[in-house]
């Protein structure tokens, strides 16, 4: 099966943040600050191999538990973790499913910090999960979501 490599396996985002690199690094790796912009109430601290856990604080997703395993911590340059993307269904155990890798890279540019986020590994995520997430995120697909729910719980 040939899915287009570049198109389906990864997301890449870049943003120029007007803040010193150390400041951005703190916002990424201090669990309280991370939680603020990411929308999760985290406990624990960022260290290689550490598991970060906590409830999502985004409206409508409060029942969802965020869980990520930290991989790389290279001060002020690179921070990465693995997690289950869109693990939003209550009562579903995602632990057997493959994870995606989220990598934050910081580069100093004139008067700002360039933050790049790459999340990769989506091609390994079960098709049914992706379809479900797709349906959840498209407006006007209510009935189809119901169909899919039945499909996934049958």
């Amino acid at each position, binding site marked *: 099966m040939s899915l287009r490599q570049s198109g389906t396996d990864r997301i890449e*985002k870049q943003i120029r943040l007007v803040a010193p690199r150390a400041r951005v690094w703190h916002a990424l790796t201090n669990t309280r600050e991370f939680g603020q912009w990411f929308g999760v109430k985290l406990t624990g601290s960022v260290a290689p191999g550490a598991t970060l856990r906590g409830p999502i604080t985004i409206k409508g997703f409060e029942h969802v538990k965020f869980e990520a395993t930290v991989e790389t911590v290279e001060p002020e340059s690179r921070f990465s973790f693995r997690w289950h993307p869109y693990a939003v269904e209550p009562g579903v155990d995602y632990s057997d499913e493959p994870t995606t890798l989220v990598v934050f890279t910081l580069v100093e540019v004139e008067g700002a910090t360039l933050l790049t986020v790459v999340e990769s590994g989506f091609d390994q995520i079960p098709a049914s999960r992706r379809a479900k997430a797709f349906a959840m995120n498209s407006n006007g697909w209510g009935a189809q979501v119901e169909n899919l729910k039945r499909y996934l719980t*049958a």
Partner: protein
Amino acid sequence: MVEQSVQLDNVFRALGDPTRRAMLRRLAAQERTVGELAEPFKMSLAAASKHIKTLENAGLLRRTVRGRTHYCQLNPQPLSDADEWLRSYERLWDRRLEALEALLRHPEKE
């Protein structure tokens, strides 16, 4: 967009039946002949063929003919609709990065 909606309608319609869902699950494990697909459901070959056709129309099943035997394979592509899915997932990241930007602009008092 309209064509895509029609395609998605077909996909979800195909998924809306327990027999077809079971067929897909069996195909997820390995390819099957039409006969093998029909076998656990105690139904006629004609009835099974109808289900197979529905799955085929939705693009979820592909058929290859080898000799005189039709083999069915799962095609997860329409289910995943990966591009579209990634796009919607990307929006979540956009929102988060905007929130990060806002946080850095208006730092909370420590």
